């Protein structure tokens, strides 16, 4: 192999339809050959719609999460383990799945059996777990969204998907941003990202909202302030 860069290199690394690749690109080139130059984008939209006040941003997050039917709780570092223990007990969860990097003290007060997510665990095994507890990468106040990026305290995407009950811990103010633009600059697109706004829901039947079609039926978010 010699020079692997540029178009030729890219073409050799693609799958089927290489002939079509060149044809499509040629058609694209011809199609816009006479088109007017399109200017670069004007970004005069707002980077946030919320005053820069951490307490107000946290309140907004709380409100928007709740409006999208997540159950929201607030506590501090000390109150977190007993709160998690109570939330698991209230649901009668006998097993709790936690990613390897979850701070061990978080689950220090629960007697639910801790299940590890092993690479070889099957989806069916996950399906049998009662609850899952994770951290997050960040949370967005204006949209009521938590974002997971597969970090050590969040684990693989499937563990927050298959079990029916997800508790997500958000550390305020560090992990709370006001807006989508503020979130984008902090996220790493090379990681798999899952944005979650409220529990799984459908409105496909006569627009009646039903929760928990495939993803967790219940999303609880714990806002931990220091």
């Amino acid at each position, binding site marked *: 192999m010699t020079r692997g860069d540029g178009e030729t290199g890219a073409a050799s690394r693609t799958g089927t339809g290489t002939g079509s690749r060149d044809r499509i690109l040629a058609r694209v080139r011809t199609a816009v050959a006479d088109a007017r130059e399109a200017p670069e984008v004007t970004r005069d939209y707002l980077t946030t*719609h919320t005053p820069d006040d951490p307490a107000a941003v946290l309140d907004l997050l709380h409100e928007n999460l709740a409006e999208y039917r997540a159950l929201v709780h607030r506590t501090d570092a000390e109150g977190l383990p007993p709160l998690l223990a109570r939330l698991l007990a209230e649901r009668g969860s006998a097993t709790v799945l936690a990613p390897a990097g979850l701070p061990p003290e978080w689950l220090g007060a629960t007697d639910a059996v801790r299940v590890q997510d092993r690479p070889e665990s099957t989806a069916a095994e996950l399906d049998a777990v009662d609850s899952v507890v994770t951290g997050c990468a960040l949370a967005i106040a204006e949209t009521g969204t938590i974002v997971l990026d597969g970090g050590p305290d969040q684990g693989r995407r499937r563990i927050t998907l298959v079990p029916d009950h997800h508790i997500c811990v958000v550390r305020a103010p560090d992990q709370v941003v006001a807006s989508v633009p503020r979130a984008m600059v902090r996220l790493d*697109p090379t990681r798999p990202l899952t944005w979650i706004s409220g*529990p799984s829901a459908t409105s*496909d*039947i006569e627009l009646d909202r039903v929760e928990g079609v495939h993803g967790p039926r219940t999303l609880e978010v714990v806002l931990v302030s220091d």
Partner: protein
Amino acid sequence: MSGTFVGMPAFPEAARDAVGNTTLRANLRHATHTIRDKRAKAVAELADWQQLREAGKQIKNHTLRHLERYLVQLEESVVRAGGTVHWAADADEANRIVADLVKATGEREVVKVKSMATQEIGLNEALAAEGISAYETDLAELIVQLGRDLPSHILVPAIHRNRGEIRDIFREEMGKWGRAAPDALTDSPAELAEAARLHLREKFLRAKVGVSGANFMVAETGTLVVFESEGNGRMCLTLPETLISVVGIEKVIPTWQDLEVFLQTLPRSSTAERMNPYTSMWTGTTDGDGPSVFHLVLLDNGRTDTLADEVGRQALRCIRCSACLNVCPVYERAGGHAYGSVYPGPIGAILSPQLRGTESEIDASLPYASSLCGACYEVCPVAIDIPEVLVHLRERVADRGGKGHRLEKAAMKAASWAMDRPGVMAAAERAATRTRRLHPKKVPGTGAWTDSRALPELPEKSFRDWWKGEGR
């Protein structure tokens, strides 16, 4: 298993049938009005909506102008991230590529995330012909698939079915495809959703191959993005070992930052939410998390023809939010099926005839499936001037030999209810100022209104002025 749009009657006839179906009309009216009102509220929350809309339009225009550069960059990014990129000039080629990829895995079943690109190319039917079962996993798509039916709305494809019909479909059909619906299934939406959950979970947990589309592809990073609500998307995108995404070439955007615009405008325009429940973003493959094999199939299928049309190319900006459907008086009356394509409503009326050409009766009739009231343009988050493209396409059809006038008459008749509503018609007439040449003086038809009155003279003021001044 599902039907096909090929051979559909032209819009006027199909619309006339739909207008006569009162259940369908009531369902549609309920749906479009509910979403429309909620959407206006969600949009009003953002003081910079017009700036976001303008930025969205500019991002898409810039991308389309330099599409070659961004497609090549996207390909490099996806390959760098561990994916394989395939190019498909048309539906047949795309279907063949996907079928071969599935066969190479040794599997005979795939789970699918709702995707208009794969509907556009008839992928499910093509896979079935190769002995591969493709299961739709979006609740509405499942309803449509089990009912051997066609989707009627971009966002809520089964909106033409009510709960009683859905229960009957589930009871009769689920057992033929997998886990049967419970015997005592009632028509409560919660119970119906639960039946779907159990029926599909069995498929998700064993699926080895997932097939999806994507809402966006980021050239700079190679990231693909899927917006959804139910979690079926996440299931299909993360549980299988192999993921195949079929995406139109117009879905690329240049940068990661560009996504922040659409993450704000798409959910609010579409489901009228601040954010949809789940958005998945993946960049190639990630060790130990999600599929270990990722294929991206880039689809042309008429898009480069559309791109070559100076006026029509703006249709490629569409982000498929469906806002234009929900405000369209003709769509509300005629229903999605009348458009004879996976793209119904105002966007379908300009996209389908461009992707497929205007040779067939249905495609030639689509540019007439509008009252030109302009409401679709006003709500469009990427500011596509749908009326402008409609008029442009009417000229194209009319230039080809006289068919236009007849089609217009028929389409106007199908939409004649609008004429009973002074507000709607007033808007339509004002919008028509710049399209005089294409408007008949008197609308021939059977409705009382059209029989007794000639169309008023077209006023000078444009629809948009009216909308901003007196409208709403």
